[in-house]
């Protein structure tokens, strides 16, 4: 699904040069649920941005479904993001002046050939999946953090992306709500077969996924199948 080869990311500011990622090689196969852990500032978000085509590596190659994306223009990259990738952020990133339904519909506004009626239907289906059918007319400010994150997940999955990139999706939530979100993601992965890459600081969450990659100072330090997963599979 996504392959990273020799990825290097250097942030260059006037005074300092920060190496955010160094020599990262990764392959995320289709259908996998991967979690990424590491201390703050080790480059996890940077990695996710590069996988999500929001940022370009300083060096190295990103391949999506075997196609290197290096030569794509902004318009083509945007279309790829729109069709293949769903994003979930720690801070939800909902538009406060739009209702839940309108927020969820957003990705399809940037996809041509989807009618308004079809968009609405898909948005309702997505909201049903995250258990928020009763809150479609609400505005983000009227929802709890967990509910907001569920709206964000509905928005990420309305376009039926092959992969969801989640950057600390439970980072702002208490353990109960975090659990809810985690269950939705697990469900998406096991039932719909959506590939998921999730950054987390929570060992428990990480151990519910198939594979755990640890980062330190911009480099992978470990990459292994999780015990829980092995246990579940047996």
């Amino acid at each position, binding site marked *: 699904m996504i392959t990273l080869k020799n990825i290097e990311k250097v942030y260059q500011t006037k005074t300092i040069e920060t190496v955010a990622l160094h020599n990262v090689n990764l392959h995320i196969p289709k259908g996998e649920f991967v979690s990424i852990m590491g201390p703050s500032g080790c480059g996890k978000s*940077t990695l996710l941005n590069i996988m999500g085509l*929001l*940022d370009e590596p300083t060096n190295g190659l990103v391949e999506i479904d075997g196609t290197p994306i290096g030569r794509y223009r902004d*318009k083509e990259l945007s279309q790829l*993001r729109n069709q293949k990738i769903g994003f979930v952020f720690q801070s939800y*990133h909902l538009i406060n002046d739009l209702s839940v339904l309108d927020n969820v519909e957003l*990705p399809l506004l*940037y996809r041509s050939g989807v009618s308004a009626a079809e968009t609405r239907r898909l948005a309702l289906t997505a909201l049903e999946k995250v258990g928020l059918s009763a809150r479609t007319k609400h505005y983000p400010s009227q929802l709890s953090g967990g509910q907001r994150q569920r709206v964000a997940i509905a*928005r990420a999955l309305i376009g039926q992306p092959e992969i969801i990139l989640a950057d600390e999706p439970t980072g702002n939530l208490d353990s109960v709500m975090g659990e809810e979100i985690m269950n939705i993601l697990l469900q998406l992965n096991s039932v719909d077969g959506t590939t998921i890459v999730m950054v987390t600081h929570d060992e428990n969450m990480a151990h519910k996924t198939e594979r755990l990659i640890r980062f330190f100072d911009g480099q992978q330090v470990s990459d292994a199948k999780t015990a829980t997963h092995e246990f579940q599979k047996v």
Partner: protein
Amino acid sequence: MIRHLFKLIWNRKKSNFLLITEIFFCFLVLFAVLSLVVHNVRNYSKPLGFEHENVWLLTMRPASDSTELNRQNLEQVLQRTKAFQEVESVALTTSNAPFAFSQMNNNLAYGQKEIMANEYLVQDDFKEVMQVQVSQGRWFGRQDDASHHQPIVINRALQQQLFEGEDPLGKLIPRNDSLNYQVVGIVEHYRPSSEYTAEEPGFFVRIDLPKNENAFYGELLIRVKRGTGVAFEEKMVKELSGITKDWTLEVSTLEKMRQNKSKLAIVPLIALAVVCSFLIFNVALGLFGVLWYNISRRNGEIGLRRAMGASSGQIYRQFIGEVLVLATFSLLLGVAFAVQFPLLQVFEVESAVYFIALGMAVSIIYLLVMGCAFYPSRQAAAIHPAIALHEE
């Protein structure tokens, strides 16, 4: 996408309220000033109905109250002026000569209709002096001496308002209990007040000196030969003073009077336009500032939209689109207000003037907001998605 923009603006109507009112008032001021400008320009482009070049106005103010003596002098002045080689023709009139600061009007009634019209008292030769063109019927003259009625020539505006579809030639309009005006001719245009004044209904009444033994008229229009200058003016005034003794005589060219009148119309217009430009500049600056601020405030939203698949071009178009939608809200209000002027006929101005001004004001507002939105929107489109999301 357009629906999305309307929804977004509508849901943000509270924070956009100030901008909407600002654009609304800007539109109204523009509409008012443009209406005035269009009105003036349209008038200016219409014919005056006379030729004022090489025409002088001699103003005579007698010093004594003796009607008989004054009348004697007047007739001598007429004789003498006509006799100058430099003079082509002369005609007496009243203080409402072309481009003079004076008006005279009268009520005219025909059938059920009654209107107020400008009245111009002129001698037969006025037609030659001012080179007025009669389009229907004829000018008055000697042949009217025997008539029981007082012949008048009316302008088209009067014909349209008083007679509407009817042929006015030969029609009688009561002047008083014993005398009727009779329409003998029509001129298409006559706008003596200024080049910027709209056509008003008006009519010419014949000055018949022999019939009115005691009448006195203090304004003499003189058409001089082309190229006649100040030297002749001095000579003429000197000679005429010899006849009139202590009368006050003043000569002015109609061209000079026209310029004075034009200035009077143009100067306030320019002042208004300057004030209006300042206002618009201020609004533009404010708009630019608000848009600029909005975009930096909406970094997170921009990053999010980019992540959801918006290309940089789509972000650009969204921000331009939002401003256009905003302007549309204001303009809907503004136009609803502005169309009341032609609909209710608040002032006596042609509806076309308002509609032209309306169209211009709408276009200018759209151009203005697009101009203000151009740079901020480009900045928004250039924001790097990863950085925009990071900053939130």
